[in-house]
């Protein structure tokens, strides 16, 4: 540990539904070292200052997707945001925007999970294959095509960044669109037609106003904004093809 202990004020938006009628800010003075993450700051608060502070976390290394929150108004993973960058002024931590708060920094994520479940996020094989036949052949190029979109950790920062989702939570949103796209462009998959029905639906891609903030906050370089835009083109293509293709021949 460093020789001189520094103290940083951390302001946390508290909401305890059994005692608070509305969210309230509470400030904690937290000793820290330069290598400490915002998450470690919160853990310090919970361990030594106030055991009642609730937040989700687990892996500490930006892969489990649990610890998304607003840090000074920016959707961030608290495990890879560092206290030193806010010293000496301090920082304000709030629950992820655009989701209902369950308690303190914990949001209700049912909507996200329901959307995830609804888009058939699994391989619908083009050509079923038995295990005896071994793996599907997939070139590195084919893999690279979807790999980026398969890297979403479901942290929902992009939803907290998305102004459209903030206005209308029926919008499918960036992260789930990236996941849908990931399966649609997988060389093993043949389920695109089923999934495009979702894209074409009213609350599909066309709700996106192309702000691009979703991709900016993404901690894993998934670029969900790009997935949304690619699907706008796909969806438009689908729409026109409906008029020129005889029924049932579309893929």
């Amino acid at each position, binding site marked *: *540990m460093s020789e001189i202990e520094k103290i940083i004020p951390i302001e946390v938006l508290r909401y*305890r*539904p*059994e*005692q608070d009628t509305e969210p309230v800010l509470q400030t904690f003075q937290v000793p820290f*070292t330069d*290598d400490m993450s915002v998450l470690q700051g919160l853990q310090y608060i*919970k*361990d*030594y200052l*106030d*055991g*009642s502070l*609730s*937040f*989700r*976390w*687990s*892996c*500490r*290394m*930006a*892969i*489990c*997707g*649990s610890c998304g929150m607003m840090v000074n108004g920016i959707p961030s993973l608290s495990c*890879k945001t560092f206290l030193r960058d806010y010293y000496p002024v301090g920082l304000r931590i709030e629950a992820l925007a655009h989701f209902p708060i*369950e*308690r*303190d920094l*914990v949001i*209700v*994520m049912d909507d996200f*999970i329901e959307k*995830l479940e609804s888009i*058939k*996020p*699994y*391989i619908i*094989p083009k050509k079923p*294959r038995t*295990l005896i036949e071994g*793996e*599907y*052949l*997939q*070139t*590195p190029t*084919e*893999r690279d095509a*979807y*790999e980026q979109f*398969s890297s979403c*950790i*479901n942290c929902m920062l992009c939803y907290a960044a998305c102004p459209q989702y903030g206005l209308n939570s029926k919008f499918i949103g960036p992260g789930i669109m990236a*996941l849908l796209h990931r*399966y649609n462009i*997988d060389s*093993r*998959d043949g389920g695109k037609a089923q999934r495009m029905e979702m894209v074409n639906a009213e609350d599909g891609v066309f709700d996106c106003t192309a702000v691009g903030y979703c991709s900016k906050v993404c901690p894993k370089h998934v670029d969900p904004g790009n997935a949304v835009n690619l699907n706008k083109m796909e969806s438009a293509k689908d729409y026109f093809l409906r008029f020129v293709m005889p029924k049932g021949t579309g893929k």
Partner: protein
Amino acid sequence: MEVFEADIAIIGAGGAGLRAAIAAAETNPELKIALISKVYPMRSHTVAAEGGSAGVVQTHDSLDHHFNDTVGGGDWICEQDVVEYFVAQCTEEMVQLEHWGCPWSRKPDGHINVRAFGGMKIERTWFAADKTGFHMLHTLFQTSIKYPSIQRFDEFFCVDLVVEDGRVQGVVVIETATGQFTLIKAKSVIIATGGAGRVFRENTNGGIVTGDGMAMAYRHGVPLRDMEFVQYHPTCMPGTGLLFTEACRGEGGLLLNKDGYRYLQDYGLGPAEDKPRNKAMELGPRDRLSQAFWYEQQKGRTIEEPHGSVVHLDLRHLGEAYLRERLPQIYELAEEFLGVDPAVTPIPVRPAVHYTMGGILVDGKCASPLSGLYAAGECSSVGIHGANRLGSNSLAELCVFGKVAGIEAAKYAKSVAPGNTASLLKQAADSQKQAEQLVTRLDGKKGTERIATLRKEMAQTMEDGCGIYRLGDSMQATCDKINELKQRFKNVNVEDKSSVWNTDWLLAIELGYQLDVAQAMAYSAINRKESRGAHQRLDGFEARDDVNFLKHSQAHYAGEGAPRIDYGAVKITKSQPGTRAYGAAGEKAEQEREQAAHV
């Protein structure tokens, strides 16, 4: 209390739990499966596994090689019949994941690519860059959505098993969002709750890895087997313990001491060569590499940093482009958490606790001695890891034995009648009372012990007594300390008295689980008077002792008192215990074994 009627309850929705759920659903779609997890499935710690998963694919590799690497790597305390089954199933399970969409890294011809790993004779580690666990977990989770008979209980925390008429008949859970209790009735139960690495101070594990399932089974009389064997991974981030995968070395990374010297050659792992050689130097097994670090530290040849002594993991010669392709997550971890560009500067690393080789005693069918109770994955001891797990075997284990557990639990569920709800509810009410008393307390007084203080003292004493090298005195001190902490835990203060998302309360329950698991580890360790694999003593028991200790330890829960330790036989099929050696010495030993076999 609400009651949910399931046929099978699965506790834990990481790799093993999800694989079990899918297997059960495919075995019998009529069965109602309750998949319970204290976190959303994709948060489970499988997500953090990096390097890869084993499965023989290369023509010059063989099941025998995988078997020998596993059994020798485990210092011959593996169940060899189970290992034989395991290695024969791994590849099919990896192909199954491929069919389900796992983005395995590929060769130019479109076939699966494999990489080298520590302690492995031939490369057989399937990988998805360095996010293999992440991709496997998300693939399994997303695939599980296809099966309507799987009903998930996301963010439900399990507090107890319900056992009646000599068989498990359900589980008691708290809904985190409300604090409400539910009895989930089930004819069979699968525990898939992962390891317990958080009982140690410096570890690679996520906060959720608290041994819950191990402790629940243990409290109901199921022995915990081989708990003294705890794996230190040699290359972790100082302070936080975050993992730098073994794949760093599989791809050609080097370990250097403060003089820039590849010190592993001084510890029977050499010779040091320019090109990586399997089962030598940096590709030696984890226990030996962590032990070599310890000696370097004793000799003053490590580098001193604020979070302790370190050596250097040197990836510079691999170049940025290759590192970004093969080890993108490692690259980012080094950059973001340490401010180190690994293409330019070596990464400081030190060993940290990574994996619990032992766990809930189960047979090769994942069945525990308690009827109806199954276990799979890190929480279980199915017998493949022995005294030191081979890297890449744990992800494969999740699939192979998750599937077995799912099939077996489905069969068992069809063979028994549902239990009596009223009497099960009575038991569940007792479990509820037990859990609530942590908050309300019987004496009505305020607790005086902080959860965090107890947890930190536990983690420190485990590191002090049950670290890379162990001494009788310090293990005794750890046993005494854990006993003291268990007493003090009765006086724990849960500050939060609310119902909605009361994580203070859940942390206290987890701490109770951890203390029981830690106690089983410490007593199993002090009773093993030999050195084997990850259990190394420096107090007169430096050698492996096959006469007295070629056997599994079994810790039996004894409530307030110290656990009772007894021993079970080790199943040997085709590999008699031999010299465990790596590098040139290992190759010589292997030749001698082959010659002896051909006489």
